[in-house]
């Protein structure tokens, strides 16, 4: 079976999409010759030409706004924001226009834009390069928010995001770019909007997405050594949420924790807890706890290990819900 890294799978997804649909365009800062700072667009300009894969001036609001205009001319732009925090200058275009165009035009405009955002910490980067801004997008009605956790699924999700007729914020957990997975890349995997159970378990459910899925799996393995059986759910899509899979797992286990890198206050974990409150209340044997980044700015690289959820903190939270 072939082995690919998540980065390679994403490149393949872009190549596949450029080949399948000649209306797909790739734009962003340094996506051309350089292939992006993470090389996700590596080789694509050479292969598909400067008209379909092009560098833009350094202006993120413009990258988003121009992408919108391109959809009006019938194109399907896939825009790259260089890092998480550099997507913020584009927030106004995304919130006021991208998320709302279809609605505001009473369904007469279609907005097939994908914004790719490498996100999250754990790679020792400089400040503003390690944030997890999913809340800003997930709270904005009209967007879809997708976060792959493994290489093969990254391929599926990115292909499907580009095919999607609605705007998709596609968050790439950058600390997992080099993670490998074996198997065939397939455009027909699970759809957007479906969560998946990564590991079955009976005592508690651990809910995560992106880079924290792997961390959760590690914690689940460690727990197993103490004969604790943890079910790990990878959300894959934050919006629209897969309410059913989420509730089903917790109805079964009766206990849950949710893990994410973003700060706690209104991190997506809050939404998970609120949904479980509503959909699984009578099954809950303990409060659903959150293991998250602290409610501080993202710290400098030398301290990030004390900021990001690690296996110990996850095990601590598991213990609390199991012994409640």
């Amino acid at each position: 079976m072939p082995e690919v890294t998540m980065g390679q799978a994403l490149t393949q997804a872009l190549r596949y999409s450029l080949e399948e649909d000649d209306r797909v365009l790739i734009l962003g800062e340094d996506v051309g010759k350089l292939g992006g700072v993470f090389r996700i667009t590596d080789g694509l300009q050479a292969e598909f030409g400067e008209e379909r894969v092009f560098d833009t001036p350094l202006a993120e609001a413009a990258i988003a706004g121009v992408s919108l205009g391109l959809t009006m001319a019938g194109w399907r732009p896939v825009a790259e924001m260089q890092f998480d925090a550099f997507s913020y200058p584009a927030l106004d275009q995304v919130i006021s226009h991208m998320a709302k165009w279809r609605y505001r035009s009473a369904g007469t405009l279609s907005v097939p834009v994908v914004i790719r955002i490498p996100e999250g910490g754990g790679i020792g980067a400089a400040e503003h390069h390690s944030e997890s801004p999913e809340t800003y997008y997930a709270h904005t009605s009209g967007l879809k928010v997708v976060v792959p956790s493994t290489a093969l699924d990254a391929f599926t999700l990115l292909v499907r995001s580009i095919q999607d007729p609605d705007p998709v914020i596609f968050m790439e957990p950058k600390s997992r770019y080099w993670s490998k997975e074996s198997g065939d890349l397939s455009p027909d995997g699970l759809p957007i909007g479906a969560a998946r159970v990564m590991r079955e378990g009976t005592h508690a459910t651990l809910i995560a997405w992106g880079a924290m899925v792997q961390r959760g799996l590690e914690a689940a393995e460690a727990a197993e050594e103490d004969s604790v059986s943890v079910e790990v759910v990878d959300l894959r899509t934050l919006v629209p949420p897969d309410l059913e899979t989420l509730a089903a797992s917790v109805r079964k286990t009766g206990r849950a924790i949710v893990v994410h890198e973003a700060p706690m206050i209104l991190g997506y974990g809050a939404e998970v807890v609120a949904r479980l409150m509503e959909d699984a209340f009578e099954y809950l044997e303990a409060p659903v706890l959150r293991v998250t980044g602290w409610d501080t700015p993202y710290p400098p690289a030398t301290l990030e290990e004390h900021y990001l959820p690690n296996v110990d903190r996850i095990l601590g939270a598991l213990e609390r819900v199991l012994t409640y």
Partner: protein
Amino acid sequence: MGQSSDGGVRILAPDGTIEDREAREALDLKDEDLRQIYRFMVVTRKVDLESTALQRQGELAVYPPLIGQEAAQIGSGYALGDDDFVFPSYREVGVAVARGIDLVDYMHFHRGTWHGGIPDPVGKRFGMISVPVGSQPLHAVGWAMGAKLDGKTACAIAYFGDGASSEGDVHEAMNFAGAFGAPVVFFCQNNGWAISVPIERQTAGEIYRRAEGYGFPGVRVDGNDVLAVYRATREAAERARTESTPTLIEAITYRMGPHSTADDRTRYQPEQQIEEWGLRDPIDRYRRFLDTEDVADASFYQEVEEEGKARAAEVRKGIAGAPPRPVEDLFKWVYTGDELPPHLARQRDEALSMLEEDEDA
């Protein structure tokens, strides 16, 4: 064309006499066009006044009058080709008139029946009504880049105000247009005010000169001279379509009305300034030109007057008392497809059940 001291290039003097005969002769406008331009200006004026009246009567939620800016809007709108794409702000009823947009469709925006603008913006080549100031020129640039990629010979025109010129998005749009050679006309209506902030406080520069920094031409035009506006836009659109060169046009005009029907401009707008500009009414000026050119007679003016009234009445008839949309429309267009995602389906069901309860009560 003649060059007024700071009011931009002109063809007509403020009194309607021809200031630049050569330019006037060179215009590609037949008598019929000259009459059509007048017709559009009058229709615009009537519809605009009627819309203000409709707001006062509670039929529109809020309305931003364009009175005084008819020459800027009709002159530019009339200069466009069928395939060219308009990206308006929120004050472009005149452009809508020139482009044959259904005005009742348009007015639903101001009634609050729905958001965003007219249905089918792509088909009608008339983009979303954009309230976030300065946000729409980027859409124009994106569309223009896309049209160019397709080898089309069409241009986009982005309308925005003097206030909008301060926003970062407008700068980014112009720089992108220059860098990509996007076929765009940036049309800035400098009407002297951004709500209560006069142009002198908005910038220490001259807006049209911004273009120099992006490597494309900038022109200041007398925005109350419909022929000068027409000509400048025509040239800019041509340059965009054939040379992929953007142009920034700054049309100097004046907001004769309040910022919107919610505004109290007596707090800031000097009476005297309003009076002065009242003497430079763009419709009067153009009519004096038509009179001297002998392209229209009394019956034409009479007919136009009637037509203006009729169009205004149509708008009233179409919009007054228009019912709200059904509640389920709240959920329809968040995402594509008839089936709502589960979280939204729940909410739609709740909203509809509330309605039933209301009906039951």
